[in-house]
Every structure is written in structure tokens, then in C-alpha cells.
């Protein structure tokens, strides 16, 4: 029972990642559309991130119950020496707050990197960009999906 349960949890986790990869495909398609229509790729990313933050803030509690994302599942992660020593020095901040802001900032920096490099890459590259972006071309060709996506 145990092994089966563990496997199912891991597979559900990986299913989530797969679903998100499909969502990202559509994100890039829409971003590509934005770079064609709008001036200022960085401004576009700034506005989308502001909107995403607001959306997550508003839907925080409904999402918590829907996604089962509590940290009860996440006990005993491996300690990183450098972080442990920093945490000791910053003892006035709780461990959770420190972890949240530290990993959130690192992820945010990487997210910013993706946004900027990818968005400028979209402008630099001739034709369609990453293989993912071929989807965009396919959707453009298939007249029935495109209007649903962009003119809803």
C-alpha cells in the first residue's frame, strides 16, 4: 500500500508539472501575439506580473483549499549550511518568513530573467521561436481556435 501511495503522489505531482507545461505553451503563444501587437515587451511583462500578483492575492484562500498546497506534506527538507548560519544571525525573523522571502526572491529573479530574455528573444529571432512557438503558427492557421483564444 505504502509504495503504491507514494508512487501515486509522485505521479500526481508530475501530472501537475505536465499540466503547467501545457499552460506555459499557451502563455508563450499569447506573449508572442503581444510582441507583435504591442510596443514595449518589458512593459507587457510588468503588467502581466502585476495582474498575476493581484490575482493570486485575491484567490489565495480558494486556491489553498483547491490545490492542497499546505506544507504539511513538506517536512524535513535538507538543510543548507549557509542558510542555517544566516538564519541564526537573523533570529528576529521567523524561519518560515525567511524561507518564503529567500526562495521567493530567487524564484522571482529567475522569473524576471525568463521574462526579459525570452521576451527580447521573441523580438530578435526571425520567424517562430522555440518549438513551442510553432503551436502559435498552428493556431493561427487553424481558424477556429485562434478567435476563441484572442478575441474572447
Amino acid at each position, binding site marked *: 500500500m505504502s509504495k503504491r501511495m507514494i508512487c501515486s503522489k509522485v505521479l500526481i505531482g*508530475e501530472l501537475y508539472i505536465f499540466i503547467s507545461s501545457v499552460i506555459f505553451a499557451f502563455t508563450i503563444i499569447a506573449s508572442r501575439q503581444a510582441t507583435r501587437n504591442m510596443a514595449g515587451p518589458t512593459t507587457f511583462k510588468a503588467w502581466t506580473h502585476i495582474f498575476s500578483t493581484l490575482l493570486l492575492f485575491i484567490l489565495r484562500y480558494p486556491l489553498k483549499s483547491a490545490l492542497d498546497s499546505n506544507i504539511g506534506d513538506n517536512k*524535513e527538507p535538507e538543510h543548507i549550511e549557509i542558510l542555517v548560519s544566516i538564519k541564526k544571525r537573523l533570529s528576529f525573523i521567523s524561519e518560515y518568513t525567511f524561507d518564503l522571502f529567500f526562495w521567493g526572491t530567487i524564484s522571482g529573479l529567475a522569473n524576471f530573467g525568463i521574462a526579459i530574455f525570452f521576451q527580447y528573444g521573441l523580438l530578435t529571432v526571425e520567424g517562430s*521561436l522555440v518549438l513551442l512557438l510553432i503551436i502559435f503558427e498552428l493556431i493561427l492557421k487553424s481558424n477556429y481556435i485562434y478567435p476563441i483564444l484572442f478575441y474572447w
Partner: protein
Amino acid sequence: MVAGKAAFINSLFVVATPFIASFIPGASHKITLTTWFCVALSVIGTYCLSNPMSSSSSFGVGEMYMLGSMLSCAFNIIASDLGSKRVDCIDLTMVEFVVAAVLCTFSSLLMEAHMWYWPFPALQDGISLIVLVGLLESMGYLISTVGQTYSSSARAALIYSLESVNTVLLGYIILKEALTKMEIIGCTLVFMATLISSSVEAADEVPMEVLEDVECIPILQDVNSDESRRLTF
């Protein structure tokens, strides 16, 4: 830069993720030989799909952008993997977006100051796209962060490499576009890599935090039982 080459450079985050993770103490312990094998298989598969050698071999600004994007992808996956095991996924994604929003706004003010006057032209031109991308991005990142609670960064990167397969298959299904032999080989290799990684390693590579969830007490009791002792001796 041609699409195939860009695709190949960007897809190298499948290799970069476990490689960078191997230098980070908290993330390195999950990478096994099978994962490396799957990563190699996936890269060969993506190579077959994108055929980067068909384009010129020069390395320009576009390639540098894609390298930056690739490294950012790798760092994002690792940071989400480590962060999601320590804090709540929704809080983590929210802080991530706040940081990214602040940095994007700051860089936009520096580089595209002409876009920031009332009424904001960006909002006027593409409010529907902003809402659509914002919605998709927030949900995509959130779901991937939740998923990474149960998976390692190396395997998450492998699953992301399935995107190229999805693209080609979608073209085949929707537009009835014929696949070349190289594309079929590429799809098969990437798909095999993901399948091997997910099925063979699932049981061996289970994160410890998941193990603690499971009812282990009966199993431990069984080990100490008379029957199990007899079996051992």
C-alpha cells in the same frame, strides 16, 4: 537565428537544471544515473526535433538571449523545487510574482519610460492579452510549484521537455501535418526519456517528505514479527 537552433538552445535547460542542482546542497541528492541517462536521451530527441545544424553556426545576440532564458529556466525550476518543500506553494508563487513584477516595472521604467503615462497605452492596446497571459502564467507557475513538492527539479525539467513533443503532435492531429523520420525519432526519444524517468524512478526517488505521509508503522511492526524473523534467518 533560426527557430530550430533557438529551440535547441532553450531546451538545454533539461541538462542545465540537474547540472546546476548538483552544486546546490539541498537539491543535489535526488539526481541519479537514470536521470542523467534520461536527460541525454531527451537532448538527443530535441536535437532530432529541432535540427539546429540546418541553420548557420554563428552565435549572435539572439543566441545569447536564449542562453539567458535557458539559465533562468533552470534556476527557476531549482528555486521552486527547494522553496516548495519549505513554504506554502501559493505564498511562494505570490512572493515570486511580486519580485518579478517589481523588477519588470523597474526595468520597464528605465527602458520604456514612454509607456508609463496616463492613460497607460499598454493597457489600452492589449488588456485582453495582459489578462490572458497573467491568468495563464499565475496558474501555470502555481501548479508547477505544487507539482514540484512531490518531484525533483531534474525530473520536472524532463517533463517540461515534453512540450516540444506536444507541439509536433498537435500539428499532426489538428493540421494532419506529416512527421518526418527525424521528428518521429525525436518524439520517441523525448517521450521515452520522460516515461523512463517517471515510471522507473518513481519508487526509488521518492522525496522523504512524502514517505512521512505514509502509514509506515504496520510495515515496521511486520519486520519485528516472528514470521519476518523466521524469513530472515
